[in-house]
């Protein structure tokens, strides 16, 4: 039984949407570490910022949930392992952050982005570390 995923051709559009939607955040990251208070975002309305956040998450999620060109049971297992590790990493990050900084608060979009990025990265690394003959 195969896990239901999006078709392979969704991968590139998903990544393109994520990259385009993330450009303001990346630029802002270099200009000023204080998100939402710097000049880059001052050029954009609050609604545009939210829209870009949502588009970025959706693009990354579409990329992460798209099938590989050849999708078999080994890759399914690698995906499952990546999800398991992502869950453990997310739990560790949140718990440690609460222990170290009692007033810790994280924006939901950052947490989701962190999870999807972590999952995509782990899956990519595991997939490419599988040797050929």
């Amino acid at each position, binding site marked *: 039984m195969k896990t239901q995923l999006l078709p392979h051709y969704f991968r590139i559009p998903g990544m393109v949407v994520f990259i385009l939607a993330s450009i303001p955040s990346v630029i802002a990251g270099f200009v000023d570490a204080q998100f939402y208070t710097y000049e880059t975002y001052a050029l954009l309305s609050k609604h545009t910022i939210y829209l870009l956040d949502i588009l970025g998450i959706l693009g990354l999620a579409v990329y992460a949930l798209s099938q590989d060109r*050849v999708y*078999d*049971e*080994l890759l399914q*297992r690698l995906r499952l392992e990546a999800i398991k590790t992502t869950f453990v990493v997310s739990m560790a990050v949140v718990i440690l952050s609460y222990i170290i900084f009692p007033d810790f608060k994280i924006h939901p979009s950052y947490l989701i982005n962190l999870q999807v990025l972590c999952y995509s990265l782990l899956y990519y690394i595991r997939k490419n570390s*599988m*040797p050929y*003959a």
Partner: protein
Amino acid sequence: MINCIKVERARHNMSQSDLAEKLGVTRQTIYAIEHKKFVPSTVLALKMASIFGIPVEQIFQLEEQD
């Protein structure tokens, strides 16, 4: 679980890519199965047996620790 996929491939003059293509999987998967890094599903094992024309238990055998 031990397997004799490599032997059967050689007997049928098949490369890993040939077998992978016939099974609709990646070459990495064939490599992982041959090197006991991954145990295939029953469906894949049966497909393999059908390609080699031998019973599935002739390709895969349990080891003591299984």
